[in-house]
């Protein structure tokens, strides 16, 4: 990436800038190490030249999946987190496309294992179901049960301070221009297009629930609980963890986007996300651009995006 732009106003910025000269927004520096040192300050053996700790650039820090021109996903550790606790999985079965994004819950133990286990098992279950020609809604519910079991079986030491491994999950099966979406938690699905962009899921979060019950969003956002998730995959989740479900008919050209909150925390509105995405581009390019946007905005959390693009 030779030219960098301020994500807020688009002004051209250089690598050494800490603030945009035009609008004053802070520009995220590429921090390779927890101590704040840049990626360039990590030596060949993974040791940070500033704080000395070993920070090898692990495979999971940034990985990309590209099944074909229209289906891709990118997961990135972001700038501040010491490891990537997100995971994603994609599959194509005959003419069905499958997308899964999971975000390990940081306050639980081994969130990175939880998200990986959930994403892979859910994707495998969905793939098997679509191979058998199952109904997408039924397949989704079964996949969530399977993934939930796998996450619950992750061995962990349970104590007062440790929540067992937990993760969010959002899945999509797209068949014949119909997307069947299931979710638990606050990872989201969006439809992005020139017109009619919309968020397809509603977060399982304290914020959503109190606003639905009548509190204003401004008030709700003041509470420290506002980011709490009310439903998830994990040993201490409610037993009736039936996923949220929605069907969506693809109207025309555009992108079906699944993402973790590492992205939407910087651009919650569908229209904004649509604006950031390049139009008529390959799925992988769209993913990379969205991830870069999140990193440039501060990258405070892991960022995962999966995109299925529609040309018409």
């Amino acid at each position: 990436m030779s030219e960098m732009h301020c994500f807020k106003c688009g002004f051209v910025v250089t690598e050494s800038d800490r603030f945009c000269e035009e609008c004053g927004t802070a520009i995220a520096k590429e921090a390779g190490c927890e101590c704040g040192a840049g990626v360039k300050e990590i030596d060949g053996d993974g040791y940070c030249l500033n704080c000395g700790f070993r920070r090898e650039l692990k495979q999971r820090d940034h990985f990309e999946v590209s099944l074909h021109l229209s289906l891709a996903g990118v997961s990135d550790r972001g700038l501040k987190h010491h490891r990537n606790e997100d995971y994603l999985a994609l599959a194509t079965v005959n003419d069905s496309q499958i997308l899964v994004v999971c975000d390990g819950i940081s306050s639980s133990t081994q969130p990175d294992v939880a998200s990986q286990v959930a994403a892979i098992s859910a994707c495998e279950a969905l793939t098997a179901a679509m191979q058998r020609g199952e109904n997408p809604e039924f397949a989704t519910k079964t996949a969530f049960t399977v993934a939930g079991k796998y996450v619950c079986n992750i061995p962990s030491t349970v104590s007062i301070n440790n929540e067992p491994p937990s993760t969010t999950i959002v899945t999509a099966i797209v068949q014949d221009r119909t997307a069947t979406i299931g979710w638990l938690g606050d990872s989201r699905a969006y439809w992005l297009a020139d017109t009619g962009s919309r968020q397809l899921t509603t977060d399982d979060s304290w914020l959503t629930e109190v606003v639905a019950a009548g509190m204003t969003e401004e008030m709700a956002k003041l509470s420290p609980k506002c980011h709490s998730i009310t439903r998830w995959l994990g040993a201490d989740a409610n037993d009736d963890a039936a996923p949220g479900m929605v069907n969506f008919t693809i109207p025309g050209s555009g992108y079906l986007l699944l993402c973790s909150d590492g992205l939407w925390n910087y651009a919650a509105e569908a229209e904004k996300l649509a604006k950031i995405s390049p139009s008529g581009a390959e799925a992988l390019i769209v993913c990379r651009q969205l991830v870069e946007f999140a990193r440039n905005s501060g990258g405070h959390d892991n960022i995962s995006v999966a995109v299925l693009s529609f040309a018409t």
Partner: protein
Amino acid sequence: MSNFKAEIFQNQFLPQGSREVNAIMTISVEDGEGITATPSNNRVFGVICDTSGSMGGNKIHAVKYAMSKVVSLLPEDAYFFIVTGSSRANVVYPVSQATSLHKQQALAAIKNITANGGTLISTWLAQALAEFQKMPQAVRQALLLTDGQNDDSDSQKLDTVLQACEGVFQCDCRGVGTDWRVPQLQHIASKLLGTTDIIPDASMIEADFQAILAKAMSKDVSDVSLRLWTPQSAKVLFCKQVSPDIVDLTHRAKTIKPQVVDYPTGAWGKQESRDYHFCIEVNPGNVGDEMLAGRASLLYTINGVETKITDSRILATWTDDDVKSTKLDRTVAHYTGQAELAQSIQEGLEARARGDVEVATSLLGKAVKLAHESGNEGTTKLLKTVVDIQDAPEGTVRLKREVADVDAMALETRSTKTTRIPKS
């Protein structure tokens, strides 16, 4: 060609919360493919000799004889000079190549040396500095001989001159007889990266001078620095050379840039081997974290161009495995013991000098025990001149009632000599 090899000895595993990292770095030079010496390969050897009144008689005869021997032994491609001094310095022979003509002239000049006057060492060093500055690219080594104490009036001047000499040339100091003060010469030698020793009798001067000359002529690479990088929040508790003898380099650190310091190590010759003990305090990590606690490299600079010779990593890994973290690296333990040994001798001798028999006995007894445990026979032998050993492994000793000054001074000067770790 000199081939430098460096090796780190340490137990990199630390218990949770531990902050102190210890490592021994062994650097050896062997013949073979490797670093070339200073381009010109020029060596300058300077003799700095006391000719104060007290040197009169057989001492000055012995010194003149030894100097002549040194001059005749000089290799033809080496350079040399001779400076004598009392209250003033005198250039007996200026910096010149050791051709047969120059050697002849020097020998003649040596014959005219006489002893009289006081002792103002600063003047001698200042003159030597002037001579050395004529050959800035060469490997510059000097030998200083005195028989007495520097005049008190000269102390401040001496410090000023030493500051100017630091980094320009190295100097080995020798005291003949027992009227000189060990700390005085050690002060000079420490600043000028040299050794100190006693020459008990004038008749031994010649042999000692020859040894020093041979060592100087074996030096290939000059101005070698030990460069240490540490992480940002780390603190270097100490950096000591621990072999062949103990030299605390901690306060010689020169900051190159944030987190990087250089310790001067002077010139290195063929077949040399030195060990360094690093002790670094770091911010502890969590169990499982790995850290690069330090990076030590050896490098030399010629004409502003830096050449790195070796590079070693000092690591720290935090663990909850007691078996891993409580193992003491043998080499670190050995040198920690040797340093303790040297300290016990120093403090023991100080206690003895002020008449504190009980403390002296206890400390010198501890020294005997440590010397025995580490197989440091040289030091044990020196200790035997000052104490009667009743039980070496237990460290039970008795102070000798009569101790010759020369023996006490020999122990004092050589207490910093260490042994290498005994093969188990």
